[in-house]
């Protein structure tokens, strides 16, 4: 009897599909690819806007086409990228990336955070190169305020961002390897990345999302003994890079999967506003660190590695060469690290030193005001761009004279690079899709923001 009474108790358990949800299911209808499209949409999806350099000469089984959905939950889409591909046998004819699955409204969030809180927000955009996002944001804030940071802060910023570039490229290399089937490359890439993340953690306190570069300088000085840690990195890394070359550079499987795959021409790259290693792999000599130098990077000597064919292999080579160049910069910064303060001596943006707070009431009030109200930034607008590992990372900042940005827009390099996927994938094999995506190195946090 007791069993029976128990079984009549209702449990309000919602099972998917049993009853109608009161909320309309989200649907990407108009954003998706469809069998019938207008001519202008087809041009974009076939990747023939700038130039149509692909030929329909492959043998196709009885002209049957089907649209295949790839992602958003797919291990080789680097997060939540969704692709719709129209296939003819094994060949991709047209494709369309569908994004927005990681959209969290960070530009809206930025309008509700003070300028000093804003770095916590931007650091979470491109989570593999957080320091570059912080740098672009802080440079924009400093430009609006007319603040000049001391030389040591500039040098620390360059040191940290170049180390960050190496760690980001290591992940690009690792995931590129994993997607093509070189799984050991994945393990090696992530292992070496830890070396750099350990260094970043020692100084900033966090492995990722550092919130280290602040308007007016950096949050803390480099940790004691940082030179020894850098020396270890500088000694260790080239050995590991040589091992990667042994593993990949003459590996026939790697070469056949990457050479001639996912080709972008220079005209297409410029037309589609592709920046970063993907642009330089096509042979266009364009690096913001050379063209519009920031934070005193013009004082250090380095080369801009270029490719020639614009295929997956060239992008891989450009990234490897860039890591060598970044280490060169790091070595120069280490030798020439200026002495002095790591943040600007301007009480408007810089909080008082911790020791002063214990002894001075005014310092306590000052500290409190700075972190509750924030500082006011004069009215104006500016666009500042830095060369992130993925390309031009720009920050368009508008202030109305208050303590919070009126508008903060991030020009995300992955976002712009991603729109070129149809031109790189059109008329290529389905199996090359993952190699192409990985070589563009999109970070979905950066794409969707």
């Amino acid at each position: 009897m007791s069993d029976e009474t128990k079984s009549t108790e209702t449990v309000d358990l919602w099972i998917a599909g049993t009853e109608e949800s009161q909320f309309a299911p989200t649907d990407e209808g108009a954003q998706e690819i469809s069998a019938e499209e207008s001519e202008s949409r087809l041009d974009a999806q076939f990747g023939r806007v700038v130039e149509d350099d692909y030929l329909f000469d492959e043998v196709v089984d009885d002209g049957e086409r089907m649209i295949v959905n790839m992602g958003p939950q797919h291990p080789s889409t680097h997060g939540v990228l969704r692709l719709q591909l129209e296939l003819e046998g094994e060949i991709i004819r047209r494709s369309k990336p569908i994004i927005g699955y990681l959209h969290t409204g960070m530009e809206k969030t930025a309008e509700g955070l003070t300028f000093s809180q804003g770095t916590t927000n931007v650091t979470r955009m491109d989570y593999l190169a957080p320091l570059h996002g912080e740098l672009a944001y802080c440079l924009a804030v400093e430009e609006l305020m007319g603040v000049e940071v001391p030389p040591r802060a500039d040098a620390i910023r360059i040191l940290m961002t170049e180390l960050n570039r190496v760690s980001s490229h290591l992940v690009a290399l690792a995931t590129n390897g994993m997607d093509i089937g070189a799984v050991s490359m994945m393990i090696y890439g992530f292992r070496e990345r830890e070396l750099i993340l350990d260094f970043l953690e020692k100084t900033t306190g966090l492995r990722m999302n550092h919130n280290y570069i602040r308007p007016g300088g950096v949050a803390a000085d480099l940790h004691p003994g940082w030179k020894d840690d850098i020396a270890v990195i500088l000694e260790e890394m080239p050995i590991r890079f040589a091992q990667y070359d042994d593993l990949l550079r003459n590996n026939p499987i790697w070469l056949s999967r990457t050479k001639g795959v996912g080709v972008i021409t220079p005209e297409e790259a410029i037309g589609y506003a592709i920046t970063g290693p993907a642009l330089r792999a096509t042979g266009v000599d364009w690096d913001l660190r050379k063209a519009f130098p920031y934070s005193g990077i013009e004082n250090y000597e380095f080369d801009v590695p270029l490719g020639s064919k614009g295929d997956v292999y060239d992008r891989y080579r450009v990234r490897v060469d860039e890591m060598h160049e970044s280490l060169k910069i790091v070595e120069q910064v280490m030798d020439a690290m200026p002495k002095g303060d790591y943040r600007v001596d301007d009480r408007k943006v810089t909080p008082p030193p911790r020791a002063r707070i214990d002894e001075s009431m005014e310092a306590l009030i000052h500290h409190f005001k700075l972190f509750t109200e924030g500082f006011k930034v004069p009215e104006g607008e500016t666009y500042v761009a830095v060369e992130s590992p993925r390309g031009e990372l720009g920050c368009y900042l508008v202030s109305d004279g208050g303590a919070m940005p009126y508008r903060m827009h991030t020009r995300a390099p992955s976002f712009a690079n991603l729109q070129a996927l149809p031109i790189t994938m059109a008329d290529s094999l389905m199996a090359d899709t993952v190699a192409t995506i990985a070589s563009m190195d999109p970070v979905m946090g950066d794409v969707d923001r």
Partner: protein
Amino acid sequence: MRIVEKLVAEFEQVTLEDSHGQDVARVENADWLGFASSAKAAGFEVCVDVTVVDRMRSRPERYEVVANLLSMQHRARLRMITTAPRQEPVVASLVPLWPGADFAEREAYDMFGVVFEGHPDLTRILMPDDWEGHPLRKDFGVGSVPVQFKASHQVN
């Protein structure tokens, strides 16, 4: 004479401003595409970014459409800004000139509801298709959204 000054001199309605050392061209809405194509012909071969600023309270022409151009050959940047009216904000699309403006204009449409006339595929990009409103407008409040899996917490 710099390339930007030469470019602006061609247009009577366009004014050149200096914003923290950066060149900003204020363009009439009707001249938007014409000025853009002259800029492209003058050497600005990359359209880096297109975005919108909502000046809801301060300007009668509510939306400011901002395009950042880049010239690799002249190592120059130019920002062109135009306005779009409060009712029916429409501006010409830059996609016919620079295909790279595609995603940026879709994002601007999605976030602000500014219509880019001549864009081949003007659909939402970051928000779901059935989303109501344009989130980055200043009159779109920050709030919570009911979650689809709401009923599951009723499990005893």
